[in-house]
């Protein structure tokens, strides 16, 4: 004989608890936090390199950068002028979780930052399940990928607040269709903000920088509103 005992317990409740603590701390410090997610090779590190270099006088920025192996990306970002760059080598794990970010954030002077980027592991599946205490997930896609990617990874595109389309200088050299990718993404998430740019030529970067400043200003304007996470 066996008895069925109803439970209602979130499997990732420990991650969610830690993410709530992180969110409260980020809010206390008034730092805007963006969780950058994409496939490998879409240009997360390149976008951050351009951003750190160009925005150094306008914003105080820090980066927590995750990679399965090597600290190569962290070195690139430190060289690009990252005020504070903390690497996380996951040693095989396919995503960052709130515990890893908590440890990395402990070594950052959050009080002295306006904006913190969390560069997630290149993967459009696993990172979507793990809240890192961020204000927003920003999903990158590049024109050398399929324009049906939002349809293939709906979970990530649904959970993101903005989509950045990179490598637009290469438009026309592949079958990537800008109108189609936007249509696909908006079908999954009608409130997704969309930016397009090229890290290589700089096209569209100004709009990205202005968008970042708006995120920082928005966070500053609601300092204690979200402490409960």
């Amino acid at each position, binding site marked *: 004989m*066996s*008895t069925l005992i109803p*439970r209602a317990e979130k*499997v*990732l409740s420990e991650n969610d608890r830690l993410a709530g603590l992180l969110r409260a701390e980020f809010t206390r410090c008034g730092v805007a936090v963006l969780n950058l997610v994409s496939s490998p090779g879409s240009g997360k590190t390149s976008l951050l390199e351009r951003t750190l270099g160009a925005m150094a006088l306008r914003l105080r920025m820090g980066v927590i950068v995750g990679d399965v192996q090597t600290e190569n990306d962290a070195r690139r970002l430190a060289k690009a002028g990252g005020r504070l760059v903390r690497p996380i080598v996951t040693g095989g794990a396919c995503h960052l979780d709130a515990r890893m970010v908590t440890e990395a954030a402990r070594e950052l002077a959050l009080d002295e930052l306006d904006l913190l980027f969390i560069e997630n592991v290149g993967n459009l599946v696993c990172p*979507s399940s793990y809240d890192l205490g961020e204000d927003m997930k920003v999903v990158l896609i590049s024109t050398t990928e399929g324009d049906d990617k939002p349809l293939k990874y709906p979970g*990530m595109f649904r959970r993101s607040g903005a989509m950045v389309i990179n490598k637009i200088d290469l438009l026309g050299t592949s079958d990537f269709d800008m109108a189609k990718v936007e249509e696909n993404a908006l*079908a999954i998430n*009608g409130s997704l903000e969309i930016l397009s740019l090229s890290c290589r030529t700089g096209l569209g970067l100004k709009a990205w920088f202005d968008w970042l400043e708006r995120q920082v200003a928005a966070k500053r304007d609601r300092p204690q509103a979200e402490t409960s996470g």
Partner: protein
Amino acid sequence: MHELAVAQAIIEKVEQWRQSEGGLRISAVGVRIGLLTDLVPDSLEFGFEALTSGTRFENTRLEIERVPITGRCAGCGQSFTVESFLFVCPECGGRDVALLSGNELDISYLCVEDHNDEHEPEVKLDSAKGHTT
């Protein structure tokens, strides 16, 4: 492929509960997985089996229920099942759709045997976490 990490989290939760209840034998664990979580049930089962092999949960079944994605249109208030991940209201075509279900990753029930297994040593709540024999 974070199914292994999810399976590990499920096992830890079940073990914590088992210890707090004085060491019951658990024959099945029910989990609800929303279709928006991108988790593959087969991989989760595989991970669960791999991690429980040779432990006290070796014969514990993982029973997975998939939860459809449902939403409510902010424009006309219509509730509907989201097909093919397209968050578009079938009534008015609106795209401002609030998620009602589909994000679940929950333990929904446990099946326990009515008697404690006499071969199992008593395990106290504060003993080694995640310990298996």
